[in-house]
């Protein structure tokens, strides 16, 4: 699992510099990480990693760390 690739995807969607995204980043750290952006992010992750998130995974993902942990759990 390439952390940098994930940060690049998140920064691209949030329209911020890649170095602004950190493993402990949360939606509160970005003014435009609202519920709409959150859904776009999860769909982009499904697309990039060719996965289907379960409803429980969707509900649990709240932060960058949650996204990272979920992808590790899936085996990415």
């Amino acid at each position, binding site marked *: 699992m390439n952390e940098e690739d994930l940060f690049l995807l998140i920064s691209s969607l949030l329209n911020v510099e890649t170095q602004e995204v950190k493993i402990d980043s949360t939606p509160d750290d970005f003014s435009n990480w*609202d*519920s709409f952006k*959150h859904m776009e992010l999860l*769909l982009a992750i499904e697309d990039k990693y060719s996965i*289907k998130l*379960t409803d429980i995974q*969707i*509900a649990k993902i709240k932060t960058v760390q949650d996204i990272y942990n979920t992808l590790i759990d899936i085996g990415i």
Partner: protein
Amino acid sequence: MYNPYSAGEIVYLRHPTIEDVEGSWHEWLSDEELTRWFAERNFPNSKEAQLEFFKSNSNPNLSNRILLSIVDKEKDIHIGVCSLSRINWVHRSCDLAFIIGNKDYQKGPFMMESFTLLIRIAFLRLNLRIIKSHYSLDNKHSVLIHKLFKFVEVGSIPNYYYDPKTGSYTDELISILNRENWMKENCSSN
């Protein structure tokens, strides 16, 4: 938590209370932006009207609608309402609807967890078979959340919704989530 019907990590769903009626619930349903895509949005709401609605839903055992308040688990704040309505106990189908009315909670993932809990109530607790959902093609939030939760678009009605903000009509999308397919994707996480 007070009288939880279903609980997640950050929200729980419970039967609405008279305190919910006396709070800001009725204001959400008068809010122009929040109700932009509601079929019932065209009429002003009031605390008295909300009380009547509350009373008409006070006994879910006699209803074809399960109405639930969405509550912030940590602070015990009423943040929204969701429902399974038009439940058909023969065909085992229902319509799904929800609103996060408290605008302080619209940024976070409260909608995701509420949606997950509601789907699980429909399929696992009530043993329903099909969840239907109707929404405007221009309601981008609805389009995305249904895609994320793997609803399948089965039809549309052209120019169904009148959007007072733009003065134009938009298509209604009809999507369904089938219990059998949902179980295949999600049952291993139960």
